């Protein structure tokens, strides 16, 4: 699962932006709580320093402590539980009985700062950490050390109180940022997804190019894709043309062979097989590429084909009736349309007893579809054999030309253009072939 996530651009970019967001927010939280701590300590130091100022007020120039004066200000020194003070000088040590053990603080800066309190931290006997300030006075009677201490808890409590909502706010911010980058990715990668869908549509034959109106980063890719598609189409057309040229070039010598060998049935059968193979592959080569931009008017094409088929089957007196809705055009190459309708008409005329009918109209339910129906009064194809008749190469090895091969080519051509060919039984009792092709809007 995680591997799959990292295998996608989406997953990678999302993971990267989430990680960056979390690191940035962690750093911001750490910095802000550090700044906060400094502020709280500074505030505490001011309070401790003011206590030291009171303490120093009780010390005279000789280093003696005025205890009465001090007792009057006792209230200002008792800030809360755990706050303590001490005066150590020539008169001995007075102050809180349980004054904590203090580590030596950092040495005070020399010179003019001598008269200022220095920080000293330590721990009480019960293990509670304390924060203390100490002022050293040089008096006539000797050194006097004034110390005030408060539990570290006094610092930690407001920080704890401030950091909890801060963390909650930062977490909310992280969520917003990750969501934003998710949305950004979805939106940013949308043109790529569209491009993929268009390439899929090209492969399915539904379009011939991708849209080049894409964000500038993708324009080069879109242009290259179109160039690739065009090169592919050209290569395909070239291959198709070579196959057709090869087949055409072979037909004339095969015709000469057929004449030379016509008195030997075995050799003539071999020539017939060569011919059938050439025809098969030539027809296949033709069913390769659909020109999506093609537009062919239906009525003139059908009229020409009806005239042609009527001549080819002229000796049999087949009547071909046409009813074509005027003005219909189909999105099909003219040659491919000729192949489809020509094959259907030829089959119908071959199997008809007397009559063939062709009708074409826009589909009543869907104006984008044209329905072309060819039916005859011949024997038809039994329902259970119709599917087989549409499969490619069915009659390839059989000598009698039948419905099969032509119909499968028609079906393949129709599907190439997104159309269909279906078989049924018509009003006249024979085969009904219905060709549905995409209409070209007028």
């Amino acid at each position, binding site marked *: 699962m995680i591997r799959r996530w990292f295998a996608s651009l989406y997953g990678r970019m999302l993971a990267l932006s989430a990680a960056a967001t979390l690191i940035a927010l962690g750093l911001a939280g750490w910095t802000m709580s550090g700044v906060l701590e400094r502020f709280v300590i500074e505030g505490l130091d001011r309070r401790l320093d003011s206590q030291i100022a009171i303490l120093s007020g009780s010390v005279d120039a000789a280093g003696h402590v005025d205890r009465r004066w001090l007792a009057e200000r006792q209230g200002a020194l008792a800030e809360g539980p755990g706050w303590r003070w001490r005066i150590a000088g020539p008169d001995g040590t007075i102050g809180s009985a349980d004054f904590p053990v203090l580590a030596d603080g950092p040495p005070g800066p020399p010179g003019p700062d001598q008269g200022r309190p220095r920080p000293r931290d330590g721990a009480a006997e019960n293990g509670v950490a304390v924060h203390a300030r100490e002022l050293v006075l040089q008096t006539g009677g000797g050194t006097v050390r004034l110390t005030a201490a408060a539990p570290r808890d006094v610092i930690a409590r407001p920080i704890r109180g401030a950091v909890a909502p801060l963390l909650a706010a930062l977490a909310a911010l992280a969520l917003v940022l990750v969501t934003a980058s998710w949305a950004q990715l979805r939106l940013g990668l949308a043109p790529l997804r569209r491009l993929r869908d268009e390439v899929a549509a090209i492969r399915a034959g539904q379009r011939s190019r991708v849209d080049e109106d894409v964000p500038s980063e993708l324009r080069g890719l879109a242009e290259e894709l179109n160039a690739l598609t065009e090169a592919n189409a050209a290569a395909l057309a070239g291959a198709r043309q070579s196959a057709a040229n090869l087949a*055409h070039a072979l037909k*004339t010598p*095969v015709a000469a062979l057929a*004449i030379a060998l016509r008195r030997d049935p075995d050799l003539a059968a071999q020539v017939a097989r060569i011919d059938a193979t050439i025809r098969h592959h030539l027809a296949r080569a*033709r069913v390769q590429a659909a020109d999506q931009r093609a537009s062919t008017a239906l009525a003139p094409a059908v009229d*020409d084909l009806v005239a042609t088929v009527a001549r*080819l089957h002229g000796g049999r007196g087949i009547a071909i009736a046409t009813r074509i809705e005027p003005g219909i055009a189909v999105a099909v190459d003219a*040659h491919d349309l000729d192949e489809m309708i*020509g094959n259907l008409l030829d089959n119908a005329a071959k199997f008809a007893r007397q009559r063939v009918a062709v009708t074409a109209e826009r589909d009543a339910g869907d104006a984008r579809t044209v329905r072309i129906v060819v039916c005859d009064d011949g024997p038809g194809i039994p329902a259970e054999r119709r599917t087989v008749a549409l499969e490619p190469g069915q009659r390839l090895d059989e000598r009698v030309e039948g419905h099969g091969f032509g119909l499968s080519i028609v079906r393949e051509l129709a599907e190439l253009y997104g159309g269909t060919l279906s078989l049924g039984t018509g009003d006249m009792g024979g085969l009904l072939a219905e060709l549905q092709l995409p209409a070209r809007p007028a």
Partner: protein
Amino acid sequence: MRILLVEDDRDLGPAIARALRDEHFAVDLADNGIDGGHLGETEAFDAAVLDLGLPGKDGVSVLRAWRAADRRLPVLVLTARDGWSDKVSAFKAGADDFLMKPFRVEELVMRLRAMVRRAAGHAQPRLTCGPLAFDTQTGQFELEGLPLKLTAFEWRVLSQLMLRKNAVIERLDLLERVYEGDADVDSNSLEVIVGRLRRKIGATLIETVRGRGYRLAEPR
């Protein structure tokens, strides 16, 4: 019957010509579109077999030129191109029939005979004139119901007379349709052939129209 064959393939052209001559046709072979087009415009043929991919001038252009010059000879297009669009364009240019390569010689011969018969205005394949019958599908003549053995020249003359029964056929027209273009024609040979035919089918069926030509007359 004299056929114009326009086919550029050096093997196929002569092979078709030989096969048609075996069936008694007179055959003139042109191996390019320019010569073929010119022959079709200037000489008398009963039908033409026209390839589409020709050097010099392509088959469809040759056919259009003939039709534009009001040459109505029936034309069978013989081609390697088997697309329906090719068939449509061949028929629109004025072709009468279409055959794809490769083909069976019997098919080509049958179609040529049918084309020539239809061009002469006969709907039925079997033509008769008194005791004489001509099956245009098999090319066989019968006299009193029995097969009649004819040489190629005799067959060409008699089939012409039969197709245009009761009409006078000019001597020159008949000569043109019996002899191939490069044949060395002796002016008396037509009389010799007609003489032999009269010995085979009886003296009265073929009339000599003095100063003009011959006529196959239905006996009264």
